[in-house]
């Protein structure tokens, strides 16, 4: 055994668009210990509840993370609605979930592209992102923006989606599904993908539970913590919902879970579009949350469970807003998965948890 050395990884690293720093303790090309360090892009967004009222904060919540932008605005709105006992019209709930599942598709496709880039399969990367563009076009047509949608309002959504548009979404998804199956075939069966992912960065079920990891990272280690099972909002109206699990706990299992979740999301959207009820889309929220009232909410985002807490103080501004994001949970699990791996596999493993550092630091 050679002498242990420390190799810095990040905060600027080609594999990650976001800054996280890892000190890798390496012995003969094998990682023996990892020390993560975060705090490079803290923006103090939770503090902004003091200067932005409950309606304006939606646009701050949206900017917590670019990829889960819609999810954060939805989670925040649901929590404040619970705080103020506001009932959301059924149609708005359906529309929110449809948009949220579309976000999941685009987030997973983005991640799959980045993963393909990390293991050096450039054409797969390009094709995945080409397909992702279709979802962004839907967003653009529905909400007027590609990434930041500003589609949620307290008590509903901003504008209705008419029948022809819903049919168009179904058409686009049907076309996408065909091409996506081909991509999936490459991700799940290609030797060059398997060589880089099978058996790499394994995390057992016990470890996954011990470190409290969430999202597809946990589901790849056979831990079912998919919050969608609870059936909040329009998720409760689905005829059946089975979370996608895998038992291997390696990078390949994580690719597989996400790849299949995209197909699952397409099915969910199709089912909800078929079932969507008519009616109003907004129940305007008036007044302010009562002093001392508290509420919390959870939501399954593409990267895992997000927890929101808020409390009111009788004014238009919240007393406190607290968000726990999936990546802050998953970093501990990631350091475990990294121990004992080859130095060359570090970037694949770091990427396989789908880290979102701007969520983590807010």
């Amino acid at each position, binding site marked *: 055994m050679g002498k242990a050395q420390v190799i810095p990884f990040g905060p600027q690293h080609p594999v990650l668009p976001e800054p996280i720093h890892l000190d890798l303790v390496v012995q003969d090309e094998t990682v023996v210990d990892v020390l993560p360090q975060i705090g490079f892009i803290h923006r103090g967004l939770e503090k902004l509840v003091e200067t932005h009222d409950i309606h304006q904060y939606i646009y*701050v919540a949206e900017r917590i993370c670019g990829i889960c932008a819609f999810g954060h605005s939805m989670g925040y709105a649901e929590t404040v609605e619970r705080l103020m006992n506001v009932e959301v019209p059924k149609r708005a709930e359906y529309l929110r979930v449809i948009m949220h599942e579309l976000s999941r598709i685009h987030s997973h496709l983005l991640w799959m592209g980045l993963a393909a880039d990390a293991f050096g399969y450039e*054409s797969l990367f390009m094709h995945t992102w080409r397909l992702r563009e279709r979802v962004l076009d839907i967003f653009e047509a529905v909400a*007027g923006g590609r990434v930041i949608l500003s589609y949620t309002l307290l008590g509903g959504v*901003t504008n209705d989606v008419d029948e022809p548009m819903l049919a168009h979404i179904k058409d686009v998804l049907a076309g996408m599904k065909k091409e996506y199956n081909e991509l999936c075939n490459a991700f799940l069966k290609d030797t060059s993908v398997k060589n880089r992912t099978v058996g790499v960065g394994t995390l057992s079920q016990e470890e996954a539970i011990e470190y409290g990891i969430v999202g597809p990272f946990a589901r790849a280690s056979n831990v079912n913590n998919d919050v969608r099972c609870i059936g909040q909002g329009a998720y409760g109206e689905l005829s059946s919902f089975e979370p996608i699990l895998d038992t291997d706990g390696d990078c390949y299992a994580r690719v597989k879970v996400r790849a299949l979740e995209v197909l699952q999301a397409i099915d969910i959207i199709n089912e909800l579009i078929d079932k969507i009820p008519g009616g109003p889309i907004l129940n305007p929220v008036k007044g302010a949350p009562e002093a001392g009232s508290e509420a919390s909410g959870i939501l399954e985002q593409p990267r895992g469970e997000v927890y929101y807490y808020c409390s009111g103080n009788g004014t238009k501004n919240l007393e406190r807003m607290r968000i726990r994001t999936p990546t802050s949970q998953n970093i501990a699990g990631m350091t475990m998965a990294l121990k004992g791996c080859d130095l060359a596999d570090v970037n694949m493993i770091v990427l396989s948890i789908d880290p979102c550092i701007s969520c983590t630091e807010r």
Partner: protein
Amino acid sequence: MGSFKLGRMTLRSLFKKPETVLYPVEKRYEPEGLKGHIAVDIKKCTMCGVCQKRCPTGAITVDKEAGTWTINRFDCIQCRTCVRDCAFDCLTMEPGYQKPATEKFSATETKPEPTDEELAEKARKEAEKAARVKAALEAKAAREKAAKEAEGQ
């Protein structure tokens, strides 16, 4: 197992037209409702200042004295709050993004001086209102008087 799983898709894309467009020669289509920039119909604006109050980024400044409505398009996040909340429907969201620039600047719209016709219309409306108020006051006084007389009897 096997390699070149993506071969067919890649081959196909050799013969397809490119997914990208040659910006700036070619422009992407802009869907209706694209969040480009805020346009104001300054004639309708009453300078009530609601848009300034509700805007989450403070991009709008309304000066009632000077009759100006100012927007800093670089601060605007295209959230549409002002469009929704303006009671007089003078704001709209239109396609077309703000061009990049090296410095932030604001665009100001000034409420035009009212024309003679508009002034006449305003004067007429005010006179009507005054007449209505006067009639109402007189009616009230008459009612009160009648009530007093009734009490006196």
